[in-house]
């Protein structure tokens, strides 16, 4: 077998294995492909009260993360209600008129726990999209994440959560929280 063929076969095998792991199909979008890396992008939002965060994109999936130091409403319990997620999330950076789709759920990102909620928002073109607002905490500090994409596909959501738990994101969060 030629070397080129071996490489191509290996790549194809890897792709198939990845598709099986994520329950992928041939016509699945690039956002679900392990061969498409998460690429860092510029923080696209105008300056506001909080320091700029980090942004990543893979296919149509977008992830935005930033800490909000000292902003947790209850340092003892952390984020436990949907109202708290509404209050602290950065979903309003995408559309200030965002509306919840359903009740939120408890989540854990790395070592931090909190709550997430799915919202609907409108692009400037009038197209409706979904976005998930996530707020997890460590003592009084919050880490806010926003996932935009086709979140009705559970696999896309899972893919984004895996990225949030990757060393790339976790290392940056740790640094942003002062190394904690």
């Amino acid at each position, binding site marked *: 077998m030629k070397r080129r063929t071996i490489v191509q076969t290996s790549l194809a095998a890897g792709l198939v294995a990845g598709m099986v792991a994520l329950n992928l199909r041939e016509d699945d979008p690039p956002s679900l492909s392990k061969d498409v890396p998460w690429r860092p992008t510029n923080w696209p939002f105008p300056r*506001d*009260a*909080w320091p700029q965060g980090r942004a990543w994109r893979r296919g149509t999936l977008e992830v935005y993360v930033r800490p909000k*130091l*000292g*902003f947790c*409403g*209850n*340092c*003892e*319990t952390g984020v436990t*209600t949907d*109202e*708290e997620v*509404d*209050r602290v999330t950065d979903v*309003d950076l995408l*559309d*200030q*008129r*965002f*509306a*919840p789709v359903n009740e939120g759920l408890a989540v854990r990102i790395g070592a931090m726990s909190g709550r997430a909620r799915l919202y609907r928002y409108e692009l400037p073109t009038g197209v409706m999209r979904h976005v998930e607002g996530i707020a997890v905490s460590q003592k009084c500090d919050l880490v806010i994440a926003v996932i935009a994409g086709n979140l009705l596909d559970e696999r896309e959501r899972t893919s984004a959560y895996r990225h949030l738990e990757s060393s790339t994101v976790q290392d940056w969060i*740790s640094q942003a*929280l*002062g*190394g*904690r």
Partner: protein
Amino acid sequence: MTRQSLLIVGLLVAAFPSFAQQQKVGAPPEASNMRLVGWTDLQARSAYQPTIHRQGNRWIAYIGHHGGSDEIPTPVNPMTGKPEPNGTSIVDVTDPANPKYLRHLPGQPGKYEAGGAQMVRICDGSALPKGDRAAVYMLRTFGGEAHEIWNVANPAEPVLVTRIGGLKDTHKSWWECDTGIAFLVGGAPDWRTKRMTQIYDLSDPKNPVKIRDFGLVGQEPGATGTVPTDLHGPISTGPQGNRVYFGYGTNKGGVLQIVDREKLLKGPKEPTPANLAAPEVARLVMTPWTGAHTTFPMPKMSVAEFARDKDGAERDIVMIVNESILNECAEARQMVWFADLSIEKAPMMVSNWTVPEASGNFCQRGGRFGAHSSNESMDPVYYKKMAFIAFFNAGVRALDIRNPFQPKEVGYFIPAITEKTDKRCVKVDGQDRCKTAIQTNNVETDARGYIYIVDRANTGMHILELGGEARTVAGLK
């Protein structure tokens, strides 16, 4: 000390200014034109609001506390010998040189902001329209879950009168003693914010009557989209002034909302966007980097500098104090702002003031540096002449505000730390790096002119008086 040792110390001081500025137990306070009269340790409990009230021929200080700390969640009350969750300290300050601790009234169990009884206001029963004339009522928060009214006619033996519970947070309420109207800061369970206003008629403290819920449009139940900044606290000018000034935000997204009191109290009460917007006269949106902790009104201030001007010799001023919340300057500077509301539809910031950081290397001293709150007494002794600003590790600062367009510092006092002063930490490379510094959190004055400052880091309450130029500004002998 040898010459070599002196040289090493000198080099250290030159290389690391914070080395020279770090507070040490046993070192004297730092002061200018302010003098320590008396002190009480408040049982080494983290302190928030002090309120000083004249009861007959006695002067009583009521001090609200935050919850306990990780190390000491429930400090022992030496008077009972039992651990008690931080609540309210009641201190007789008739002789300010010898304050007498009368009673600790426990608050909600919980640490830091999650427990305690931070806020306290006092009204005489004889002032309230339907109060018991023999009673003195203390309105306090009970952690984040309730407001309580106690009869403190005998301040050593408070008696519970009323409880308003079922909340998800509380904070800096305001109570009009002449009408009984109370603007209670709390979190109604169905609202989208943890702090909004619940307005009650507490003219008869035994029978609270709810008037309405109030907040910024977008905070009400059922709203969607961005949730406006949480309320911090309101101050009302009563029926005569007919204005309530609401301060939203602590260290971010500050909003001063100017509200028509009569429309607020008598308007439609359903929390619809239209009904919430109706009583608003105007609002001043601050930079997202600053909040509005205290919004202290000073209407009809005569400004000597403008005395010969055809217009504007008298100004309606609101002093806005931001709150620093992060240790060692990990945020934008929080300070004092003066807004001119003479033309209400066009409120405008006209000045600000902050402690120069380099004057004490305050960003390196440890704990918070920046403003937190001002005195709120409207007694003539200082009103519209001087303001006292709690500035955390920079102590209390005395400002000459007779010309609010150019506020000027005329005194300060930074208390000494004690063995009980709690440390403040930041994370450096994943490890706690802790320093101990004074954290002057709140300040209040009494009609005699004494200044009371309390410490968030468990150093107690210091009772001060003015000296030198500061005394002259206030018109004190």
